[in-house]
């Protein structure tokens, strides 16, 4: 890639339907503008987000992954987001161990009322991942060990 061209990272987001997905919808209905690099995958709750999803996204070629759900205490399912947070605390250390820079995976709380926060978060994550550059380390690994089997 020539140096003059800005790198457009591919980012995959796993969000819960009650808070962050609704917040993303609010950003839309408010006609806020943000970077087009993020693809959202909707789940009922952040508690449903398996670490395997994150790995799958990186395996697919994502340069960054983000996870977002309801604020602590606000979970529609009372405490799915606490499970997600605990899981993330453990998984983050594991990511580091297996050689994936943890700064490629972002975690956030965005409520259904926070359309502005959603748009700002997407912009800041896109910028952060852009600075980190493409996740070549992983694609090289994939190349060396064959492409992932399709489903």
């Amino acid at each position, binding site marked *: 890639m020539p140096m003059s061209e800005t790198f457009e990272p591919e980012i995959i987001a796993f969000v819960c339907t009650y808070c962050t997905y609704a917040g993303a*919808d609010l950003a839309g209905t408010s006609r806020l503008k943000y970077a087009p690099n993020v693809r959202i995958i909707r789940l009922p709750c952040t508690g449903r987000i398996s670490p395997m999803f994150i790995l799958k996204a990186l395996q697919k070629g994502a340069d960054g992954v983000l996870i977002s759900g309801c604020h602590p205490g606000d979970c529609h399912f009372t405490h799915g987001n606490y499970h997600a947070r605990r899981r993330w605390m453990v998984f983050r250390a594991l990511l580091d161990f297996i050689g994936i820079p943890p700064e490629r995976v972002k975690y956030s709380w965005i409520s259904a009322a926070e359309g502005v926060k959603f748009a700002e978060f997407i912009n800041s994550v896109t910028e952060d991942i852009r600075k980190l550059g493409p996740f070549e380390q992983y694609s090289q690994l994939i190349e060396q060990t064959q492409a992932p089997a399709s489903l």
Partner: protein
Amino acid sequence: MAKIGVFICHCGENIGAKVDCTKLAAAMGEHPGVAVSVEYKYFCSDPGQESVKRAIRDNNLTGVVVAACSPRMHEATFRKACAEAGLNPYLCEIANIREQCSWVHTDSDQATEKAMDITRSMVEKVKRNNKLQPIEVPVTRRALVIGGGIAGIQAALDIANAGQEVVLVEREPTLGGHMAQLSETFPTLDCSQCIMTPRMVEAAQHPKIRLLTYAEIESVDGYIGNFSVRVRMKSRYVDIDKCTGCGDCITKCPAKKISSEFDCGLGKRTAIYTPFAQSVPNIPVIDKANCIYFKNGKCKICAKTCQCDAINFDMEDTFEDLEIGAIVVATGFQVQNNTMYGEYGYGKYPDVINGLQFERLASASGPTAGKILRPSDGVEPQTVVFIQCAGSRDPSKGVRYCSKICCMYTAKHAMLYSHKVHGGKTHIFYMDIRAAGKGYDEFSRRAIEDDEAAYLRGRVSKVWQENGKLMVRGVDTLLGRPVEIAADMVVLATAIIAQPDAKEFAKTIGIGYDEYGFYNEAHLKLRPVESSTAGVFLAGACQSPKDIPDSVAQASATASKVLALFSKDMLEREPVVATNNEATCAGCWGCVLACPYNAIEQKDILDRSGKVIKRVASVNPGLCQGCGTCVTFCRSNSLDLAGFTEKQIFAEVMGL
């Protein structure tokens, strides 16, 4: 072999102007497994839905992806259309290319590329969707109405009059809410108490309504049709069954100088009190913080006075557990404290009051028995200045939104004042007069034309005291010059804000709220009285500032929603529930720990002789709410979540 239909909606120009739908349709048509890929201006319209149905029938489609607005908007619409065409509705998915694509991106190429990714991902998901059947759960035909203001009372009466049971919970000692505090109401100027108190009595005496006052919601569990609610009955220190409401205790109570909340600090009350003379129920409570006995251990004059032995100083909070089918939240609002506006002098000068305090002054049940007398010296003010938008529409110090009722009540205040103080002068500083509503503009014109309210378009910069007058300096922007008025009283049209504990309470019942603490409706236009939680409905000013007619209309709307719910024996619920593969389940019970709903039980697998050979987890689909936390917890990958299976999500990721 998958035969997926992709239907790309232009949504007029909402999507079509940004996303190249023709290109998108062509690209999706090339995608493996896609049998039909078409675009149309409005797929949600009747011909649009018909074309989807026709495509399903003509091509024997095995799945449908509608690339359109958010699934929160039209998922139900298209799933219904699919069902009508004979396709299992859960084989239909929505690709959100409006709220999360065309509306938020500026570059057309980038938006088109993103729309392709989103749609392709959904196609890959829908290929792996399973046919699902809705889950049936029983419904408890008893409604809980939280809040005994006009909205709560209306909702409770409407539900009860239709023959269903209602529990009406109010945290204050009496029903009535803010409406009971008002003097006259716009635009008819009929007395608030006269229309309110009969409804309070009706609610209290209704055979289908169980009234719990001085009670608060402690916890809410369960789900639509089957909530378990715990109510804390705060100790009144007065036995509600023994008390006759004679009021002797109130007359004799020696602690008489307590600022009355009901009179907004303008009047006084005793330590044992009813908020106002027409309270329902007419049973006093003891204010523990101000009671001489509770403070010093001596007094008990009320107990000695009471001829029914109704006073009990040892009373403790008790709890009521209720089985409830539907909840109406009507918790109302508060007025903002205006002390953040130092320039208006609220809290500093006693004659600068807020709108609600003016209501108490103008009310026949108020501290001045309806005479407009200024709080500092009890003299009738000859010049009154009203300042509108004191807090509303002010992003810097107040709130960004319009409080909706202030223009009207200020016009009403000016009228009431001029009716009561002949020759009195009123000046109203305003930003805009927002008098939209039946008879509203005519009403505000009447204030100007008949009652000579002087409207000045502009803001006030400072209020100060000088020679016994309140000097108000502002600007008249229409004449383009500064104004200075020597007033006797200043009334601030204070912003309406959410209850201070609104957010905490939302967490208790599990509903959403906006940045201000007002409760979120499921859809602003199409589902305005439903919360995002099924079976919980919203009425009155807890959702946004609103006037009495709107609150009543919304309350009746919630009642009709509740009654629709109660019209069925069984409710249909989304079949998004966890399922367990008993063959691989190791019985570690991690899922049992993870489940917030106690929906996972242990199940014995027996052999033919009845011997237990294995113990596995079993999901009760009636209790499961479908969060999927257990699925992620499962160490043996035995659990999965219908509608969001591992396969589906991995396919979505790989489809991007």
